């Protein structure tokens, strides 16, 4: 009961912050950029539908590996550290144990990443509707543009219904941000400075993006899941390998944070 109360309280506090307005604004900007990009290509927007816009945003390596995490980290990196000074005196004594406090922080990170990714997908989808039609199946653009298709999917994926692909990408981005956000917030918690966590996270995703470009996906640590849907990268690491990597990073961060919570003086 205490855990759920604390988690709900954390969620209310997190989303009461004005900074979260940045999430939909960011999504609108990304959607507008992708619409403009497709619109200026050979076939234009005419044969496209909403799946092309969603894939244009969420299957773009730079957006997913660098931009989405950096903005997300700016929203949540201090969600643990802000609660460690004067506020901890107010919250901790209302809980039966420090463990409840820590697990609620982890839960918050899961909820925040889920809401963030949902807002991004919904806003991108919403922004695309005036410009392109809503359709259940792949658009004509996919067939017309072939390998130059801006969504970046390998041709083999076109046998899969688009909602399944989008749902997988959604889940993988969510898990990746959950894991990365937890790791970065935990680092901020341990060093006592959220900014250190944020800088470390931002550098990590940039390095990660760079290594992907140079050495291929096997060295890509963050949001590695995305690679399955990119035709231009080697196919050996699969979706499950990506889930495993992100799951391992999440588990390690959670355990380190838990042990630190038990020993830290508040």
């Amino acid at each position, binding site marked *: 009961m205490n855990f759920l109360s604390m988690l709900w309280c954390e969620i209310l506090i997190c989303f009461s912050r004005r900074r979260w307005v940045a999430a939909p604004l960011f999504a609108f900007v990304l959607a507008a950029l992708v619409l403009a990009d497709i619109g200026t290509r050979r076939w234009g927007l005419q044969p496209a539908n909403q799946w092309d816009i969603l894939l244009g945003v969420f299957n773009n390596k730079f957006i997913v590996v660098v931009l989405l995490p950096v903005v997300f980290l700016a929203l949540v990196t201090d969600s643990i550290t802000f609660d460690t000074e*004067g*506020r901890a005196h107010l919250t901790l004594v209302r809980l039966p144990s420090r463990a409840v406090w820590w697990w609620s922080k982890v839960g918050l990170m899961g909820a925040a990443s889920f809401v963030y990714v949902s807002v991004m997908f919904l806003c991108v989808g919403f922004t695309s509707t005036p410009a392109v039609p809503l359709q259940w199946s792949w658009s004509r653009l996919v067939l017309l543009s072939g390998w130059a298709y801006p969504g970046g999917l390998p041709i083999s994926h076109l046998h899969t219904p688009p909602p399944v692909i989008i749902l997988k990408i959604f889940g993988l981005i969510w898990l990746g941000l959950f894991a990365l956000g937890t790791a970065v917030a935990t680092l901020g918690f341990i060093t006592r400075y959220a900014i250190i966590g944020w800088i470390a996270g931002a550098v990590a995703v940039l390095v990660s993006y760079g290594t992907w470009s140079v050495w291929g996906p096997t060295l890509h640590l963050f949001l590695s899941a995305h690679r399955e849907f990119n035709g231009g990268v080697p196919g050996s690491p699969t979706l499950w390998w990506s889930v495993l990597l992100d799951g391992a990073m999440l588990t390690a961060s959670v355990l380190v944070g838990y042990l630190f919570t*038990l020993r830290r003086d508040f």
Partner: protein
Amino acid sequence: MIKNGDRSRSYAIEATGVVKSLGQNLILKGINLRVNYGEVVAIIGPNGSGKTLLLRLLCGLAYPDQGRIITGGRVIEPKAGGALADVGLLLETPGFLPHLSGLNNLRLLAMLRQRITDADVAAAMRQVGLDPADRRPVRAYSTGMRQRLGIAQAVMERPQILLLDEPTNGLDPEYTGEFLNMLRELRGQGVAIVWTSHEMEEVTVVADRILALRSGVLADFNG
């Protein structure tokens, strides 16, 4: 372990041989403290003597290097997920959320224990002279108003143990008198109160016992 609420056989607070260092500095050198329910114990000491640290240890925000603390029947130790005491607490600077009103800050805190209603929260604010209908964010509060809000959060859930760290800091003299009356009432209701201060004058009015914390050792003030 002693069950919560079993007052007939237990102290509200029992600290035995508590030693605590911060970095290389040995701050508390074997603290022994017993506080009964319905008793007000004042701890006097200069700034930096370890008064705040002692309160943090008593409620579980920090753990002792040596010694044993039982607060409200709970053994304060890192085992079993890091036990915390169920107390009302006011430490130096309560970290209220600056962008929310005083009422919303207290409502969020009250959600954690779920022992009181919104009406109780509003009543606690009125008790300390704050208007629950005041929609201003806490960042617009004066130092004295924040301190009153801190007192309100400490007492609103009617805790049986109250730990107050220099609670009269920033309070205006008029309200200080009301605050002391409130402490008397709480003591009459059986609440155990540990109160730290560096002002001897104010604690003599209410305290049943006055202890001095000097050089890491707790002793009778007159002793």
